[in-house]
């Protein structure tokens, strides 16, 4: 199978500016009076790089036959993906402002029936297995299409993830990249306190993955790491361990697990928007 490395996207592509995407997330969370802001903020730069530089959607169609797959297995971060879909033009402002309105389509967790989302997740440990199957299917069809699966580090508690890693390595599924959003928190505390994960790179290496660690908020580093993984370790599935900060971008939310559960009020919404420092970003 040939390895596809996408050409570097234009640096003048102003879409997917992280601060503006965080603003979209805050607007949704405020409009819908909902939670999971911290989980969305930790994957903003990862999604920025994937959507801007890597994911291929022929005809800008979220359901295009020839697309790459981005599977958000940690469905709790779905507002970040909605923000990307807004940047892609797949969602309009009324989707954002009408989040959680009665009868609306965009749910609080990833749902496969929404064009642009690939799986129904949030029950954790599902998306990776589906991604393994999609990647295996693409390999059998001898395409160069790629599958990216974003899991939370807390999600790595789930057994099917490790079943899937065995299968992916055994079957040499090298068009598959597992991206771990290693923000160090899960619902009830830090991953170290709840169920320590140990050395993740060593774990994925020992499972037969080509593995890299990266600062998940450094766009250039993330981009380089993804390119490196696709061009190294022929025949091996890929794992990108992205060190991230839960709640990244709004100082009073960073590494404060209350923002897994806390809803915005008028004051915290305004403070959070201010904290984004959007002056340099076109609104």
């Amino acid at each position, binding site marked *: 199978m040939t390895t596809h490395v996408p050409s570097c996207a234009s640096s003048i592509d102003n879409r997917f500016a992280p601060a503006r995407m965080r603003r979209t997330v805050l607007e949704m969370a405020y409009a819908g009076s909902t939670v999971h802001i911290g989980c969305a903020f930790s994957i903003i730069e990862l999604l920025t790089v994937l959507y801007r530089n890597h994911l291929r959607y022929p005809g800008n169609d979220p359901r295009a036959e020839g697309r790459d797959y981005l599977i958000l297995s940690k469905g709790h971060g779905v507002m970040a993906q909605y923000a990307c879909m807004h940047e892609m033009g797949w969602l309009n402002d009324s989707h954002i402002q009408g989040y959680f309105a009665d009868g609306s389509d965009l749910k609080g967790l990833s749902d*496969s*029936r929404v064009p642009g989302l690939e*799986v*129904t*997740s949030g*029950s954790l*440990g*599902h998306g*990776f*297995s*589906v*991604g*393994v*199957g*999609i*990647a*295996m*299917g*693409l390999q*059998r*069809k001898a395409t160069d299409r790629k599958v990216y699966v974003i899991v939370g580090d807390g999600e790595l508690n789930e*057994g*099917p993830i490790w*079943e*899937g890693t*065995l*299968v992916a390595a*055994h*079957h040499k599924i090298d068009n598959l990249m597992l991206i771990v959003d290693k923000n160090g928190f899960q619902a009830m505390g830090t991953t170290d306190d709840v169920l320590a994960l140990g050395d993740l790179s060593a774990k994925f290496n020992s499972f037969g993955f080509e593995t890299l660690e990266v600062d998940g908020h450094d766009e250039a580093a993330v981009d380089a790491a993804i390119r490196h993984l696709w061009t190294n370790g022929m025949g091996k599935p890929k794992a990108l361990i992205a060190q991230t900060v839960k709640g990244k971008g709004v100082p009073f939310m960073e590494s404060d697990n209350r923002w897994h559960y806390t809803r915005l009020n008028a004051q915290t919404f305004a403070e959070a928007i201010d904290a984004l420092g959007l002056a340099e970003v076109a609104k």
Partner: protein
Amino acid sequence: MREAFSNALVRLALADPKVLLLTGDHGYALFDGFRKHCPDQYINAGIAEQNMVGMAAGLARMGFRPFVYGLAAFVPVRTVEQIKLDVAHDNLPVVLLGDGAGFVYSHLGTSHQSTEDIACTRAIPGLQVLSPADRFEMTACMYYAYKAKAPVYLRMGKSDRGDVHSGSIESLISGGLLKVRNGRADLPGLIATGSMVRTAIDLAKVLELSVWSAPILKPLLPADVCTAANETNSLVTIEEHSVLGGLGAAVAEVTSEKQPTRVLRLGVRDRFSEHCGTYDYLLREHGLDIDSIYERIMMFCNSTESSTAAVDPR
């Protein structure tokens, strides 16, 4: 019956290269033919059923036609959530094959027995549930499942109980009950599925009862159930499965709404197996041997009120 299953699978796979067989490291001799004729379409996914079902969903989304094989205790029961979220929610054409359903593994105990699989799968939206009784129904069910292009659970129970049909069934009508014996109108009619159809026919010979086989448990055609109720004075359902949520429940759901009829539900009475032994021993333990069933039906005929209860009173 197992040969019919294996042959149908090989024929389907030879005719359609998109057919894939995924197994959770089960089916040692059963798949010799498949591995010989279609080695590239055979995937042993390891002892990892949850991932296997999720993976099958991914393969189905890429246009493949996965048949996912495991013991019924694992596929579907262990993997109910993967079936619900990854397969059924997206209406994917995945065929789930649950082997050894009921008390087939009579000596191995509860971990390998499954008497809750129909109840689990019937409640999942869009998932069809099949339960063939003999080799002819098995072949028909395999083709039905393939043509459905939708999520299907095919329950494979005790396979050596003999034929209940005299020849191949040309086509299965969606939800159709198959009448396999005519009996008296002033007596109960028997509706059975899987392994219990043979038992029902043997009983009916003695008691002159009508018998219907139910190879398709979901969807169950209400009109067929009403016909059975019309042609008899009451109904008795027999299944190697819990009386909660299985064939008996499905029949009673129809009759209670469409055609109030007394329904005696014979099956596993909300309990696990106590002991181990031969298959025949275990049927006796659960009151599903022919003598016990005969007694229950006689009591039912002689009583004026329902003689069955969800929870075994003993």
